[in-house]
């Protein structure tokens, strides 16, 4: 007999959604000047969740002006005073963790297991961590009196909506900057809920402003002359445009862009844990992770055995309702992203790679893609070169450690990498050879506020998190 888990859906009642939301400017919610709005939907059901104001150039102007007005007072506060606000925000995030997790899963499509156990705890951890730095900036290694930059314009993606907000806002506020943040068009709801938390924490008006909209809103913010610092996380294509727009201005810029990480498994790896790490590397958050381990490099001598174990494990992944506590893989964030994933997966088949997915029933409504594995992949295949940003793993093999290094580094990206081996000397040697901002060993996709994160080459520049993350918001 089979052990079938009954559905265990988290209640939506903990996270009420209003029928419409305004922009958060100068401590107040207001409609957009032009009265424009757009809809945000649940990717799991295509149900419209709410209508959100679409910020135009006038609104961005107002938000930047509010941030500019708030800057002198905010940056003039003693660090310990700013820390109090950040600690308060962190505690409110913890108190409202369930509400935020449900809202995030509704709007983004990610499983509640991940928003509840990964995203929201990390959001709180980032605010706690940077709260701790706010009164210790003279000791952070940036000189005796590091100054804030001014107004930070921040544009974040849809894959970890609230976590990316925390990565951007926490260090900016700790260092004395004020902020105008634009969340992604498809996932604005938790940023707006965060605006409520700012009010609840009695954060002075104008310190945090949130403008919702699409790429045009983001462009208006990035190009605004009143912005002193631009921080962007998202696709390499958009990142290039931003770098072009900012070039020649006095604005400081950090970019955290795409990736095509190699997850390298040696023949002496702890097999069962490596399989978990591979699964976590590529199927975590439906593969919507810029540092996802999307290229699996396996030593040829264990490839067959490892792939058999991986397929067996993939067959146990539970795909479906993001609000069900037993779901492992939720919905693809948007129709556009689903189309991109399908296009690249089809290219994999067309170019001669072998495609495999475990049998799984996908819901009929919403945007879904089964966990997918490609074997017999060559370095020249598109699925080995381009970022898919979906639950699609390309498997390549290697024979020697040198070959593993050559293949792993043979990519225009360089955000992350993984090494699986029981041999410490090889692990350290390889970590030194890999051109990637983060190298995990015998684990994957682990995040911590104390650890800097960022890329090489087309994965962007600048670091977020840790002490290094402060530097991006200080005049150093």
């Amino acid at each position, binding site marked *: 007999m*089979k052990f079938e888990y*009954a559905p265990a859906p988290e209640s939506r009642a903990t996270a009420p959604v209003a029928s419409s939301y305004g922009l958060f400017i100068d401590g107040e919610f207001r409609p957009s000047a032009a009265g424009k709005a757009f809809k945000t939907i649940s990717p799991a059901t295509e149900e419209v969740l709410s209508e959100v104001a679409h910020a135009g150039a006038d609104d961005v102007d107002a938000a930047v002006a509010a941030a500019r007005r708030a800057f002198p007072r905010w940056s003039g506060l003693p660090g310990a005073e700013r820390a109090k606000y950040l600690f308060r925000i962190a505690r409110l995030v913890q108190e409202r963790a369930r509400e935020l997790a449900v809202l995030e899963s509704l709007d983004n499509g990610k499983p509640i297991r991940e928003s509840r156990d990964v995203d929201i705890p990390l959001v709180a951890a980032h605010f706690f961590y940077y709260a701790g730095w706010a009164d210790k900036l003279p000791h952070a290694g940036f000189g005796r009196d590091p100054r804030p930059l001014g107004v930070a314009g921040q544009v974040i993606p849809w894959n970890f909506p609230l976590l990316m907000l925390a990565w951007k806002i926490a260090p900016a506020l700790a260092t004395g900057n004020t902020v105008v943040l634009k969340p992604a068009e498809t996932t604005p709801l938790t940023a707006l809920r965060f605006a409520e938390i700012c009010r609840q924490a009695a954060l002075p008006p104008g310190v945090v402003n949130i403008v919702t909209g699409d790429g045009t809103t983001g462009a208006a913010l990035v190009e605004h002359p009143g912005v002193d610092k631009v921080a962007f996380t998202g696709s390499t294509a958009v990142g290039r445009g931003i770098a072009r727009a900012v070039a020649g201005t006095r604005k400081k810029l950090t970019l955290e862009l795409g990736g095509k990480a190699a997850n390298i498994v040696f023949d002496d790896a702890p097999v069962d844990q490596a399989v978990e790490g591979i699964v976590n590397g590529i199927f975590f958050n439906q593969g919507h992770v810029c540092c996802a381990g999307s290229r699996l490099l396996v030593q040829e001598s264990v490839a067959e055995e490892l792939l058999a174990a991986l397929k067996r494990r993939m067959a146990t992944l539970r795909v479906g309702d993001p609000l069900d506590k037993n779901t492992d893989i939720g919905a693809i964030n948007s129709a556009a992203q689903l189309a991109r994933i399908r296009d690249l997966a089809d290219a994999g088949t067309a170019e001669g790679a072998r495609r495999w997915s475990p049998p799984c029933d996908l819901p009929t409504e919403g945007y879904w893609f089964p966990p997918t594995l490609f074997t017999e992949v060559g370095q020249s295949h598109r699925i080995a070169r381009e970022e898919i940003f979906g639950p699609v793993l390309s498997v390549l093999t290697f024979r020697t450690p040198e070959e593993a290094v050559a293949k792993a580094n043979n990519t225009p990206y360089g955000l992350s990498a993984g090494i699986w081996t029981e041999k410490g000397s090889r692990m350290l040697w390889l970590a030194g050879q890999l051109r990637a901002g983060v190298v995990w060993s015998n684990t994957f996709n682990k995040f911590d506020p104390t650890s800097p994160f960022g890329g090489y080459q087309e994965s962007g520049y600048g670091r977020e998190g840790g002490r290094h993350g402060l530097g991006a918001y200080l005049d150093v």
Partner: protein
Amino acid sequence: MPSTAPALPLADVTVSDAALRRFLHGLPGVDAVGLEARAAALGTRSIKTTAKSYAIDLAISMIDLTTLEGADTPGKVRSLCAKGAAPDPSDRSAPAVAAICVYPDLVREAKAALRGTGIAVASVATAFPAGRAARSVKLADTREAVAAGADEVDMVIDRGAFLAGRYLQVFEEINAVKAACGDAHLKVILENGELAAYDTIRRASWLAMLAGADFIKTSTGKVAVNATPANTLLMLEAVRDFRAATGRQVGVKPAGGIRTTKDAVKYLVLVNETAGDDWLDPAWFRFGASSLLNDLLMQRQKLRTGRYSGPDYVTVD
């Protein structure tokens, strides 16, 4: 030397101490952080309503209801047997347990009390729980238990020999006990708490399976660290891989410290998602427990009536 080893594709790895060592040390390593993280992640599965009801009845049917105290009496064993056969006097639909587990000198008592119920009698033997006795004593202990009617024998391995690296000695001893068991099922207790490292537990699991164990069992319940979700997960991986390598299926029995329904359900989730549903059967998975049953019964009553009853609505035996 080994004469009664079952014919396995891996029989040649047991021809010498060196070959056995090479094989056991060639098994894939275990990353402790990753193993524990996986066990913890599976512990967050939400098992409600119909799934919970299924899991509770399955867990009851998998219990080796155990009394292993120096103060055990025939009366105590008889009343435990009665409880095992009909665990909930207020609800005859509650399933019976899988076995009653006692010391060898009480096997006859248990056997008589369970006649006609279909419930097995399990007996700990081989100088349980320390296992520090001459092999002749251990074998005599086993033979007595089987002669008294034990259907299942729970043996302890010689941890001293194992930790000293004398793998062939441990192999031969398990093999000899297996031969002494005759038709009785042999459960081999690894005593994970004393093996300490996960790599060692994996090696001990394979050694026991190679030597003919029908079940591998986490622990005696008599040391500080007994069954944990992580070491049980590791043993489930071992039986799964062993079946893939040899075609022979071996059961797993966590024992010691599993007291609540919540815990038991977590173990069933481990079984389901690691070894698979072939093992979701009392023939292949058991709980060694003494106090777990009452909590399962209380949760069962709660599902049936919608209300929590309390400890006075289940029996103490």
